[in-house]
């Protein structure tokens, strides 16, 4: 048997072996790459997977909520960047709240550098960042004379609509204060407020191999080399017999 034929047989055998061994990995790489290319259009950056085992896998230590803010019929519990407002999860990248106040026509949650205004049914009316606040950091939020009151580093300010602010007049103010959670409540809310990983992040880590830890990217590197070998051997197997036929 000629050396060229031997090489051809060797390549064909190994081309098939490598292809078969890596077929699952290649499919995973191709599918995750395809989906990642359209992740924003599919809204995967805004979708989160909340599972205790996944958080543990990522090394995220879930934080247990210690207290709740209550105002009228409403309550807010926060942990792991998530808010549970009246039993509804409000988001995944939220700051730690400093208080909650119910006004006649809205519900206001303050963090040290932002205000979130909600309708009574939980729909977001407006979100004000530091530039729209009369002062930061916000140290406390309260209500007085049917107005919203903020105690900030620059003083105490009041507003009826959270748009225009003025120095708070003298008078009684009810400040929002945290209420300690019982251990049973804490356990229940810890489960509800588990930290999440975005689907996009998850796919990205699966695609790069980082999901498998330190050695994951090395495995993907090896797969990339396999793919290169397959392309070259495939090209060789395709071209060589053709070349031989033409020469004949």
């Amino acid at each position, binding site marked *: 048997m000629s050396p060229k034929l031997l090489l051809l047989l060797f390549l064909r055998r190994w081309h098939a072996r490598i292809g078969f061994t890596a077929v699952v990995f290649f499919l995973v790489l191709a599918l995750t790459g395809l989906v990642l290319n359209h992740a*924003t259009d599919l809204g995967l*950056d805004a979708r989160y997977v909340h599972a205790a085992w996944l958080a543990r896998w990522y090394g995220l230590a879930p934080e247990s909520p210690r207290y709740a803010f209550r105002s009228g019929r409403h309550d807010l519990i926060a942990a792991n960047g998530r808010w549970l407002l009246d039993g509804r999860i409000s988001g995944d990248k939220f700051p730690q709240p400093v208080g909650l106040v119910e006004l006649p026509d809205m519900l206001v949650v303050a963090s040290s550098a932002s205000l979130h205004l909600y*309708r009574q049914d939980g*729909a*977001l*009316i*407006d*979100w004000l960042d530091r*530039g*729209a606040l009369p002062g930061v950091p916000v140290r406390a939020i309260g209500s007085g004379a049917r107005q919203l009151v903020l105690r900030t580093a620059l003083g105490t300010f009041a507003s009826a*609509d959270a*748009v*225009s602010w003025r120095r708070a007049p003298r008078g009684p103010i009810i400040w929002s204060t945290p209420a300690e959670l019982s251990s049973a409540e804490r356990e229940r809310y810890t489960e509800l407020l588990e930290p999440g990983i975005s689907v*996009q992040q998850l796919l990205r880590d699966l695609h790069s191999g980082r999901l498998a830890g330190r050695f994951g990217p090395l495995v993907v590197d090896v797969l990339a080399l396999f793919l290169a070998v397959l392309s070259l051997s495939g090209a060789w197997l395709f071209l060589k017999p053709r070349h031989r036929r033409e020469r004949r």
Partner: protein
Amino acid sequence: MIRAAFRSLAVLILALVAAVAARGEVYQEPGAFVAEVFGSTPAPKVLWLTKEIQAQAAEILGHPPAQLRQRYWSEGGKSVWILEETGKEELITAGFVVVDGRIDHARVLVYRESRGQEVRQSSFLKQFRDAKLSQGNRLDRGIDGIVGATLSVRAMERMARLALFFDRVSHG
């Protein structure tokens, strides 16, 4: 003792870096942009998004607006709209100055994405100058894209359309 001090310092630096990253690249504070446009800061006004406005805003954005009211500033026939829209993964904050139903100028105020900062260049932003709404709440011109910043360019275009639409409905 020294090791503990170094560790605390490292944690502090990491926390600062994380805080800066979370805030994004602030090119101009929104308040400063408003003050620059008007010479001083007029009292903000509020546009409540009725169901009809929400529906049209959703058509422009491709998703429902995040909030039920929009703050803006207006004086002497000029209005300023500070809007936020997601580029690829993070929000872009941009300011639009509208005069007589046309964009006078636009500026990227805060950019939080890791790539695509080119949308803040004046060579890109000048395309919005004098743009107005045509049929179907579309801009009366095409906006040239930037390679590698396609989603940020689209977000800027959507915000420009929304600013013009909000300006129109704010005049009743």
